[in-house]
């Protein structure tokens, strides 16, 4: 009970603080207040719908985004049909390996699978992909850098970044 009473009281307080009454549109008052705008609206209505409202289809077609999307659809359609018109091409196994972690990519069994698909070139490609994340080696590591690391100042150390 107490809780309900408190909530009612809270609503009252809020209503007093801010105006919570929904605004209503009075057309007659608006006509009297803005006669020029009202006339202008009337004249537009007389000219017809096509002038008053922009053509949605035209707006969509003129949009640069629509043009890009259309181009993408055409390219996809062309590539889809060209792939499916040549059965030999369709049967060729994909050489690109569905990537896992670099460790999984350099296991003997995984590389044998790559060999089965695309020979020694596919093995080489998969190895390169796997070792790529290792990235560049530090060019040099000076005594100052090592000491800086020991002292907790890793800003200048390349090794910290690796």
């Amino acid at each position, binding site marked *: 009970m107490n809780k309900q009473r408190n909530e009612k009281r809270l609503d009252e307080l809020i209503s007093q603080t801010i105006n919570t009454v929904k605004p209503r549109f009075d057309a007659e008052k608006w006509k009297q207040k803005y006669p020029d705008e009202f006339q202008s609206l009337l004249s537009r209505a007389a000219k017809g719908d096509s002038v008053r409202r922009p053509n949605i289809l035209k707006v969509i077609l003129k949009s640069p985004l629509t043009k890009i999307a259309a181009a993408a659809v055409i390219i996809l359609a062309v590539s889809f049909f060209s792939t499916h018109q040549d059965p030999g091409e369709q049967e060729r196994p994909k050489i690109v390996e*569905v990537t*896992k972690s670099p*460790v*999984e990519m*350099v*296991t*003997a*069994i*995984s*590389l*044998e*699978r790559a*060999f*089965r*698909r695309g*020979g*020694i070139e596919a*093995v*080489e490609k998969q*190895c*390169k992909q796997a*070792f790529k994340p290792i990235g560049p*080696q530090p060019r040099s590591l000076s005594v100052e850098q090592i000491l800086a690391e020991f002292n907790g100042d890793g800003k200048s150390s390349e090794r910290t970044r690796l």
Partner: protein
Amino acid sequence: MKTIRSKKITMAIFAVLVLLVSSPSLSAYPPENAAVLYYKAFMLYESPDNIGPMLWDYWKGNIKSNEKIEEFLKKNRRIIDIVLDATRIDHCDWGLDYSQGTEVLLPPHHKARDIFALLAAEARMQADRGDYRKALGRCISIYRMARHLNERPIICYLVGTAINDATHNCITRFLSEMPQDIDTLTWLRDELAELDKKPYSVKPALRWKREAGIISMSPERIGGVVKSGLDDGPTKKKALERIRTANQQFFAKNIAYWNDYMDSVEAAFDLPYPQAYSMLQWLDEKPSKEFGENPDATLTVACAPPWQRIYVQHVRLEAKSNAIRTAVDVYLTKAATGRLPKSLPAGVASDPYTGKSFQYAKTADGFVLRGQAKNIDKVTFHQYEFKVKK
């Protein structure tokens, strides 16, 4: 007085200790394990994306040397030296963890192919300078590197095979353009004979494949093996389903199937070429054909590599190796007598496709060694052309 003497003794002992401790470190290079140096070279060698194709064209003789190539070789002099040092070491252990079965992690052997191109280009440069002995010496070093690369996994064997094969092409070019110098040719023949004491073989890879398969056919490992070894599709799905409901008997039966299968594979590699070719084709297809009805074939489907393709590479390499050894004997005859022999000297290496000697014929600018490969449905002739510098 006593204190001074004891100080002197202490100093002397200390000096001896320092010498003893430092002496092994002074003789630590080159290390006893060649793989240490290969790993070092692979790590330090910058992949030549911008100049890579040019290097390949250069060693193949498609283009002449240019400033870019010379500069690149100069820049990588130390890498070349590290690799040459590695090839002089007998022992090579890449530190692979074979207890992982077929999931053993392999070394970055893709770098070996880059390094090969570097060494081959350097050999080509030595040949351009007229130092054919050095150029051929580089080729012998590359052969040694290929032997070092041939660790037990099949992929290591295949990488080594590709490098050996390319080196054969390298040597063929040098032999074709160099003057027939009896000393250099005798030296080359002896070096090749030395290499043959430890022949480049597929056998360790076959033996290990059997072991690795058995290790991998365990409840803990097999899921990963199937996921990595099979392409996505109904076979993989079904194999994984069977593994999910597998018991000890399933694994025991699959191991027995694998063992029988590997017995046949190893035996097939020893057969004459036509029989081996057709037998391995049948063995490649067997597990997949039986997979639907026979659950014992499940894990063999996941573990078996394409044996026939591997065998074809193996025989092709052997044929080329034997052709080069035969050609060296022909060049030696030319160097000794001033003319090419009418027929092949006795005791030369045979054509592994037929088990017989190569067919030898003189050509306008040298000679040719011919062989023939009989597969199930076709007979392919292959030949190795050698030119003779006039």
